[in-house]
């Protein structure tokens, strides 16, 4: 069992109602320290409101939320938190170095530390050649990069990244992946809110699926709860397919391929034994892992819950 002190984020029954409209219904979530945690859900599921409640930007209607062992929004906890908002906007009359210096001062960082840290961060996000330009001259992708740099400025224990690859080219997306990996390697917790499921699949240790303001499922990536199976066979009769009902209700046979899904891979040998006992020739057994996108659609529903 995870101890509270091992949790970077802990929420219980978190709820937010805006003028009678429920944005977050009942958010109960545990995010252990050191994990890269994906927060997935369709538009309007309450992801951004949840993140804002955890950061103290939005006050919950009811429920509890702790961040790094302190109440959400606590000023001391914020010292250890970095945040990249979905649409990063800041004073666009500043240069990137000035922006980072200002943020560093708000974090209470010493001038000497900032003098060393700022050039390294600008280099990390590829903005060194643009260090003397004002942010108003920046493209969306460049703004996203400087936003990412400010989220990492204080070497935070917990980093909230809300759609971090939004507006970035493939090089930028690769950079974000590398940065997330580096943060995990140094022991930081990353809370990633993204629509790009491929990115989440590559970077996250665990994901939570949220629908209608509620976590409907949390699972470790790689831990496939349900798997699809394709078996290349000789002729399979309708009678034989019916016989598979004790393991699966989705069996279909066409063009020498028997496809079905199983709630556990442990059932697969039994199914194969059954098929062999009925005299079917088996040429190939290929368990298929569901992609995160398929899992997402299965859990959240193809209508996106809207």
């Amino acid at each position, binding site marked *: 069992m995870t101890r509270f002190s091992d949790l970077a984020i802990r929420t219980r029954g978190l709820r937010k109602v805006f003028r009678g409209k429920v944005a977050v219904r009942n958010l109960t979530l545990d995010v252990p320290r050191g994990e890269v945690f994906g927060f997935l859900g369709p538009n309007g599921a309450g992801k951004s409101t949840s993140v804002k409640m955890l950061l103290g*930007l939005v006050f919950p209607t009811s429920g509890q939320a702790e961040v790094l062992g302190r109440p959400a929004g606590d*000023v001391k906890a914020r010292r250890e938190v970095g945040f990249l908002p979905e649409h990063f906007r800041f004073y666009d009359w500043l240069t990137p170095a000035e922006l980072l210096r200002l943020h560093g001062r708000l*974090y209470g960082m010493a001038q000497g530390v900032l003098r060393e840290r700022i050039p390294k961060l600008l280099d990390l996000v590829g903005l060194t050649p643009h260090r003397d330009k004002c942010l108003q001259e920046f493209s969306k992708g460049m703004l996203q990069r400087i936003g990412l740099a400010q989220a990492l400025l204080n070497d935070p224990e917990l980093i909230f990244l809300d759609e971090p690859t939004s507006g970035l080219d493939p090089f930028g997306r690769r950079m974000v992946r590398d940065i997330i990996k580096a943060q995990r390697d140094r022991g930081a917790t990353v809370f990633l809110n993204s629509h790009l499921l491929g990115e989440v699949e590559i970077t996250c240790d665990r994901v939570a699926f949220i629908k209608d303001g509620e976590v409907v499922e949390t699972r470790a990536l790689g831990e496939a709860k349900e798997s699809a199976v394709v078996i290349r066979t000789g002729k399979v009769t309708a009678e034989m397919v019916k016989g598979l009902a004790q393991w699966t209700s989705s069996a279909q046979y066409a063009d020498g391929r028997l496809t079905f899904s199983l709630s556990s891979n442990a059932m697969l040998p039994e199914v194969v034994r059954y098929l062999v006992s009925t005299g079917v020739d088996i040429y190939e057994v290929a368990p298929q892992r569901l992609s995160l996108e398929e899992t997402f659609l299965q859990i959240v529903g193809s209508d996106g819950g809207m």
Partner: protein
Amino acid sequence: MKGIWIMAGVTLNEAARKKMLWMALAAGCAFLILFGTGLHFQAKDFAKHGMSPILRREISFTMLTLGLYAVDLLAVLMTILTSVDTLSGEIASGTIQAVATKPVPRWQVLIGKWAGFVGMLTAYIAVMVGGVNAVTYLMVGVTARHLVSGFLLMCMESVILLSVTFAFAAHFSTLTSGILALGLHGLAFIGGWIEQLGAITQTPRAVTVGVIASVMMPSEALWRRAAFEMQSPLANAIRVSPFSTLSVPSMSMVFYAGVYMTIALAFAVRRFSQRDL
């Protein structure tokens, strides 16, 4: 408390970088040149008509008060127009999110911004009041009676409007806040003139209406007190000036204005600290 200084610095820096302050000062210089030109021709006419020194002095004082009155109106507009977007605009655009998630209490963010504007507006009023006074002195040899008191009262008027604008902007959108702040000052402005006219026509009930307007928003009352402090003693004694001296706001009204300002600022802090961003 460091957050206050940082945010005050950001606000001043923004005013300078966005050329707000410089443009206001450039417009102020144009105003001073126009005012000086007017005074120059006035002074020439004094000599031509062989006007008595007392009358010359009173006309010069009236010109000075007129100039200061124009500065007061400019300061009112400058206060509301420059500050109205700083909270509501940043809330609407999401700019505030990156600041409000830093380890600085929200009240420090708000007070820092407020302090930055107080600094900027004080500098603006100082340049403009000092400029009008200096031009008048150079052209016609007249200077405001209690310049410092008048200047401080004009600054206080600006700070009251700033605090009220912040209180509205912590709750409403930029446009609504601007309309409310200007509307409230307009109420005080009209109330002030009703009080003046009531005093001329000796209508106590009209004076009471003006006093009620000052209680609702004491900004205009501060200007009238400032004008009283800066005008010539003769104009104050015989009550002939169009500027304010017929019904002079008391020091109790000035104290009340201080309390009003504090309450408006406290409301802004409370609302900003408790609202969703």
